[in-house]
């Protein structure tokens, strides 16, 4: 239990630092690379929670595909590879106030409600249980997601192609 808490703290600190870097850095490519650190941290938290299949999927889909897609977006929109001055809205105070207020309200409500909720000790779920659930209880949403991915693929090609 102590080791898990120590690793939670280390990974959480890395995640918070990378998340702040993603939204504050002046370099688009650096932001994408900080996003990799953040997504790897999220995968680590999934593993700590015993959700091994979700953690591996997180690494495959996010770090393997989404970040590459974002870097393609950076490349194709001809963002300069160095620092860019014109990346933020002129007024950053209002977004900061909104985010701080939201975090204050949410953390108050969460601590008030779940103060003593302890996670179960042995809770590793294997991939077989996840696949049993997907292909038995959630087969209709699964097929819907398949169709959605196809529609998104065709839609992206139609939107982005030249006339």
């Amino acid at each position, binding site marked *: 239990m102590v080791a898990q808490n120590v690793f939670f703290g280390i990974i959480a600190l890395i995640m918070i630092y990378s*998340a702040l870097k993603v939204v504050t850095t002046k370099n688009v490519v650096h932001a994408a690379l900080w996003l990799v650190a953040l997504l790897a941290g999220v995968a680590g938290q999934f593993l700590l929670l015993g959700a091994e299949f*979700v953690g591996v999927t997180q690494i495959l*889909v996010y770090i393997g595909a989404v970040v590459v897609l*974002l870097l393609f977006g*950076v490349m194709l929109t001809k963002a300069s590879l160095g620092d860019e001055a014109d*990346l933020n809205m002129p007024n950053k105070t209002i977004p*900061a106030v909104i*985010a701080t207020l939201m975090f204050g309200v*949410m953390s108050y409500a969460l601590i008030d409600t779940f103060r003593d909720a302890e*996670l179960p000790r042995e809770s590793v779920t294997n991939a077989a249980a996840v696949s049993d659930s997907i292909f038995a209880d959630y087969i209709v949403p699964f097929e819907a997601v398949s169709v959605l991915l196809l529609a998104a693929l065709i839609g992206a090609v139609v939107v982005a192609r030249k006339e």
Partner: protein
Amino acid sequence: MLLVQFLLLSSLLFCIGIYGVLARKNGVMVLMSIELILNAVNINLVAFGTMTSNIAGEVFALFVIAIAAAEVGVGLAIVLLIFRNKNSVDLSSIDSMKG
């Protein structure tokens, strides 16, 4: 481990993502901030799934990951289209529907 530590971490990530969506001007950077928000939601889903020993939390996290992949694909296509038409991805310059 306490449940609330995961919930606080995910709400902090969510709020940082909200800040990114509101404060960034580059379209690709806004998409990155949206990824942050979706990941915060995923941590919440998996944490509650573990808490209640229910596999549904993990299944829904997988669905969210799949939909996030679709979302970023379509989003980048839209950003590319904006770039082709306006030669910039500055979101504050897109105001042709402003009343």
